[in-house]
């Protein structure tokens, strides 16, 4: 099995042969979704789909709890909520989008919370699988961000002016237009959403693969016995460090996804350069 299925969002990847592969070496096959309740629910309801739904519910509950019963002197719960909200509002929204950042805040906040929660599923018991290591989910988020920045730009400038602004940088001589316009089109409307999705996917996929190599490999080494037990123990202990690294990478990728979305929106609504 090649790597191509990784880049094509077919989440029903729970065919028999994939399902049977459970072991060494960890590879693409280890990422196949398992149907949750075969026979009861349709086959496409895999653990990944369930995780995405649980993640969304968790995010909604979290922000509802934080936003409940707000007082002037904040309680601890409200303070924690406001602290997290402030990071997104001031650090991402206001710094990047400028004074009229308010309409985009709910989207940015929802985006970063959803991505963080789903990335942390990769390190937490019971789930142990990062949702975004299936390419369909980052694609969906990237398409939403893509539509957002195009629609916002068209709304502000009108179709003609918006595409002129996005495709022709200021001060380019007319002779270079045939060269510049296709390049800018590819860069602004194709490479941007694709890289947005692939960056998140590649980080989550690679991180989970490294975790599997350390944990499954360490277990195998210990099972082989003899002097390899020491190597296996070191590998298992090192896996704690990898888990910690993955927590950091998960939060960082959520931040980068949100910052870049804000950046693309801001480049859509900015008045000239």
């Amino acid at each position: 099995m090649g790597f191509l299925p990784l880049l094509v969002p077919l989440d029903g990847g729970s065919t028999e042969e994939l399902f049977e592969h459970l072991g060494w070496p960890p590879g693409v096959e280890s990422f196949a979704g398992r149907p949750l309740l075969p026979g009861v629910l349709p086959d496409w309801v895999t653990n990944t789909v369930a995780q995405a739904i649980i993640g969304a519910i968790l995010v909604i509950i979290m922000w509802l709890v934080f936003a409940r019963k707000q007082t002037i002197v904040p309680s601890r719960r409200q303070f924690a909520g406001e602290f997290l909200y402030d990071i997104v509002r001031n650090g991402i929204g206001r710094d990047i989008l400028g004074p009229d950042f308010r309409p985009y805040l709910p989207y940015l906040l929802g985006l970063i919370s959803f991505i963080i929660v789903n990335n942390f599923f990769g390190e937490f018991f019971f789930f142990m699988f990062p949702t975004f290591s299936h390419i369909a989910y980052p694609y969906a988020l990237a398409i939403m961000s893509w539509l957002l920045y195009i629609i916002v730009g068209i709304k502000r400038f009108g179709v003609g002016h918006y595409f002129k602004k996005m495709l022709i940088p200021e001060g380019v001589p007319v002779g270079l237009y045939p060269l510049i316009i296709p390049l800018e089109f590819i860069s602004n409307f194709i490479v941007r959403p694709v890289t947005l999705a692939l960056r998140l996917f590649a980080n989550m996929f690679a991180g989970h693969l490294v975790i599997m190599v350390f944990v499954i490999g360490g277990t195998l080494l210990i099972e082989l016995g003899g002097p390899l037990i020491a190597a296996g123990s070191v590998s298992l202990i090192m896996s704690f460090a990898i888990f910690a690294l993955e927590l950091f990478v998960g939060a960082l990728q959520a931040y980068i996804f949100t910052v870049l979305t804000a950046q693309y929106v801001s480049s859509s609504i900015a008045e000239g350069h």
Partner: protein
Amino acid sequence: MIPLEVILNGSLNMIGYALATLGPALGVAWIFSSVINGTARQPEARGAMMGTAFIGFAVVEALAIIAIALAFVL
């Protein structure tokens, strides 16, 4: 014991991809080291610099990401 061809299989694409990440790695490192330098010299310009830096980061990182897509596909 596990036979050798089970341990050593896979695609040479991944080695090519590892080489291909060197350029974007240097680029990203350079971008953010410049931002750190700039912030140390003029802390109040941090917001403006981070904006440009993230656009540049996205463009440079795109090379590595296109490479991983090609490493998977080809």
